[in-house]
């Protein structure tokens, strides 16, 4: 089985998912992990898929043409063997909520600190909310903390950004429980 990462983006409307998955089904693809969401006015799909024979974009032939004809942008990435499986993520799971009046650099400043401290961001979503006069930026990060790192440590690392950018940041660890 060869694996691919497929991304599809286009103006949101009902029917995109069915249009895309019908093609993939007819081609004999297996869908594995996927994430599809509305971002702004666009619908964005990211799919990891497998196919027993296909090896590259050419293998799909004209299959994606109907998508392009309906103004969807299609990109296919061929994965190296093993590229479809997630590496083991260790460490406590932590949610970081960041929000404040919109200004440049919020995402970068927070991500920079987390990257330096080897915090593995596993999910990140941002949204511009509020009114046109008073735009508010909201970001929610899910991250895996390195061994031994506590909630207070993350709070401490982010405190200078909180003061600098006048934004609110809360950090909370989600305990993992075996039931």
């Amino acid at each position, binding site marked *: 089985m060869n694996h691919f990462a497929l991304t599809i983006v286009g103006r949101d409307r009902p029917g995109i998912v069915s249009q895309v998955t019908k093609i993939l089904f007819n081609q004999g693809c297996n869908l594995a992990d996927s*994430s599809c969401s509305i971002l702004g006015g666009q619908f964005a799909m990211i799919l990891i898929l497998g196919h027993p024979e296909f090896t590259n974009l050419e293998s799909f032939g004209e299959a994606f043409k109907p998508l392009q004809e309906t103004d969807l942008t299609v990109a296919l990435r061929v994965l190296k063997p093993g590229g479809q499986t*997630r590496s*083991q*993520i*260790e460490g406590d*799971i932590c949610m970081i909520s960041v929000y404040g009046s919109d200004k440049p650099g919020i995402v970068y400043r927070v991500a920079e600190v987390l990257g330096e401290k080897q915090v593995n961001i*596993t*999910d990140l979503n941002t949204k511009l909310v509020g009114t046109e006069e008073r735009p508010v930026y909201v970001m929610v990060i*899910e991250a895996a903390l390195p061994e031994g790192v506590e909630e207070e440590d993350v709070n401490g690392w982010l405190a200078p950004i909180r003061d600098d950018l006048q934004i609110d940041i809360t950090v909370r660890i*989600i*305990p*993992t*429980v*075996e*039931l």
Partner: protein
Amino acid sequence: MAVRPILLYPDPMLKQVAKSVEELDETVVAVVQDLVDTMIDAGHSVGVAAPQIGVLRRVVVVDVSKSKLGKENNHGLLEMVNPEIIEKSGSTTMREGCMSVPDYTGNVTRPDHIVVEFTDRTGQLRVIEATGFEAVAIQHELDHLDGMLFLDRVSSLKTDLYRRKGK
């Protein structure tokens, strides 16, 4: 007295609604004991529900006293027949894993304060107030009696659902 194998999803038994216990006879006591034995055998897990060992009756056991999160705040070993949550409030999120759904964990938000009524193995009616991890554990086990898995409660698969780190 026996350690019973834990059923794994997609065993259909895990999606059924368990029947109330009408009479607390020796078969019920035997189920309670099997649940305790099975819980302790599973590296002292914090709870097991009867459907997980293939018994469709409303019986669960919970004991968070041996776990890091629950050792400060618990009622010790709870053997619950026909448990019913009569009050709930607050909210807490934990990343839950389940012996019947191995290798996956997901974020579940539940009330963090509950009042639960049940009959113990001696036939005594009890009402307890549980908070924090104990409250979460009780609700997780009670869900099994209604054919609910934590998978029914995760709000988003986005990254909510992870392969759990190896034991």
